[in-house]
């Protein structure tokens, strides 16, 4: 059962006061808070089981190994994979994208090849491919976003933006497309990408590989990699109640098998001689050095927690709150992105007329409200809204309607502060 008040009891930080007000944490698209179940899992790991994994014969090492491998299994199941060897632990979504770039991209992207991204990618899923293309003499093709903040699958005019041509996905795809790297949900606008349509079009028109940035989708929606028909999915633990410093690259086994290692070192190795080395099998081939054991265990606990709520319920809660917020904020601020709440995750992006987003955020902080402001590591899409900076309130499982009401109330205060005389 999804009872927000009960859920809130699990999150110690929600008891904090900020500037004399109870914390209203609405910066969940940046990072989420941790339930005591996750914190306790980490503490239990360190207090009772900590040891280096995979190589030790002794009891602690066996316990630690089975705990982290059990976490891997849980995470596989959570995203709908029935092969836990497809789960590669990394630090965060950014590293996962870089892993694919260095391992698969370096080998498979050549001069004249094309990589397709959207205009609303997070910098991690934009700059990484920019750099690869620059290095290889490949071409980055950018898919435009429509007025509702949705990826433009087909139709519309090609236009120039920031000195680069942007266009529909249909226009961007071609015989030279080797990779399509697209976010499932925009972190700036919250818009949900029409992945089914996208995947179908890519598969029909090209032989390109597909990488999905699930940083904002995996935390809030039921994910079924088995049904998505894509090649890689990346996401970060810290955005789904998990610890910092742990993220996941999921890939289809066949493609992971073909990819050369990325980082070299202990654990990713079979036999080592001075003159040559052999790689370990999946997933360890991609996990060099001592892993973030406590992070893996903590992410396993986060997944348990989310599953106890039920991912369908989590999504329902997001939808409810975003619908409510969109309704409430109407007329009080300029709101960006999809007007239809069903097309967006729990993210509301806005500006108060004539007031800089950073000033809005700072005055709200004075009332205990934590929102984000600025470019949200998505500078191009913010600029395409005609803005230099935007304010973003984003909800998660522990947020309430009352917090939305409180935010809206305080927006009025912000306007008062900066009202011209």
């Amino acid at each position, binding site marked *: 059962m999804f009872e927000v008040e009960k859920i809130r009891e699990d999150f110690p930080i929600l008891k904090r006061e900020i500037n004399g007000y109870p914390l209203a944490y609405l910066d969940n698209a940046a990072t989420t808070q941790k339930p005591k179940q996750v914190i306790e899992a980490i503490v239990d790991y360190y207090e009772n089981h900590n040891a280096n994994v995979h190589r030790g014969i002794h009891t602690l090492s066996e316990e630690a190994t089975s705990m982290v491998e059990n976490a891997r299994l849980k995470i596989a199941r959570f995203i709908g994979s029935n092969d836990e060897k497809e789960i590669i632990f990394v630090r965060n979504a950014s590293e996962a994208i870089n892993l694919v770039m260095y391992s698969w991209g370096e080998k498979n992207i050549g001069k004249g090849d094309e990589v397709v991204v959207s205009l609303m990618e997070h910098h991690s899923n934009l700059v990484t491919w920019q750099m690869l293309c620059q290095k290889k003499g490949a071409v980055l093709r950018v898919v435009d976003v429509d007025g509702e903040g949705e990826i433009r699958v087909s139709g519309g005019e090609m236009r120039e933006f920031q000195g680069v041509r942007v266009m529909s996905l249909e226009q961007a795809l071609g015989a030279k497309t080797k990779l399509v790297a697209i976010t499932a949900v925009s972190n700036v606008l919250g818009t949900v990408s029409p992945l089914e349509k996208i995947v179908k079009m890519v598969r029909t028109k090209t032989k390109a590989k597909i990488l999905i940035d699930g940083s904002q989708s995996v935390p809030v929606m039921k994910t079924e990699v088995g049904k998505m028909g894509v090649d890689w999915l990346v996401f970060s633990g810290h955005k789904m109640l998990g610890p910092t410093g742990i993220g996941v690259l999921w890939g289809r086994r066949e493609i992971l098998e073909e990819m050369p290692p990325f980082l070299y070192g202990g654990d990713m190795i079979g036999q080592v001689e001075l003159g040559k080395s052999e790689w370990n099998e999946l997933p360890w081939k991609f996990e060099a050095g001592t892993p973030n054991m406590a992070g893996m265990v903590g992410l396993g606990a986060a997944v348990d927690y989310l599953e106890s709520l039920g991912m369908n319920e989590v999504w329902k809660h997001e939808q409810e709150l975003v619908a409510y917020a969109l309704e409430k904020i109407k007329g009080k601020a300029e709101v960006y992105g999809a007007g239809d709440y069903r097309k967006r995750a729990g993210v509301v992006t806005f500006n108060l007329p004539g007031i800089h987003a950073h000033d809005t955020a700072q*005055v709200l902080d004075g009332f205990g409200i934590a929102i984000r402001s*600025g*470019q949200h590591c998505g500078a191009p899409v913010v600029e395409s809204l005609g803005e230099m900076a935007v304010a973003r309130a984003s909800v998660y499982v522990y947020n309430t309607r009352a917090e939305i009401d409180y935010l809206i109330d305080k927006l009025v205060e912000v306007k008062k*502060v*900066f009202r*011209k*005389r």
Partner: protein
Amino acid sequence: MEYSEEIIDNARNPRNFGDLKGANKRSKQSNATCGDMVEFYAKVDGGVIRDIRFKGVGCALSTAAASMLSDKVKGMKVDEVRELDGKVVVELMGEVNPARMKCVLLPLSAIRALVG
């Protein structure tokens, strides 16, 4: 950090805002991460800033800082302006959050470039 009356006042009604005819110095600076920008124009004569005006900027803090700093340096010797550092901004504006320091330092660095 709360915005003081004085900051709000300078942000709403910035002093020395606009073009400056006959300016012989010009300097523009921007903050990469927020995209905000400020441009100063000054009349410098005999080693002294005789007049100064600015345009641009984005947030309340950078606007207020530009406003207050321009008031402060008007009439100052160029040599003295060169000596100004972050401390002078904090003196003028009160305590500033670390995350916002870049806002208030933007006009300062533009003014220093003006006389650099």
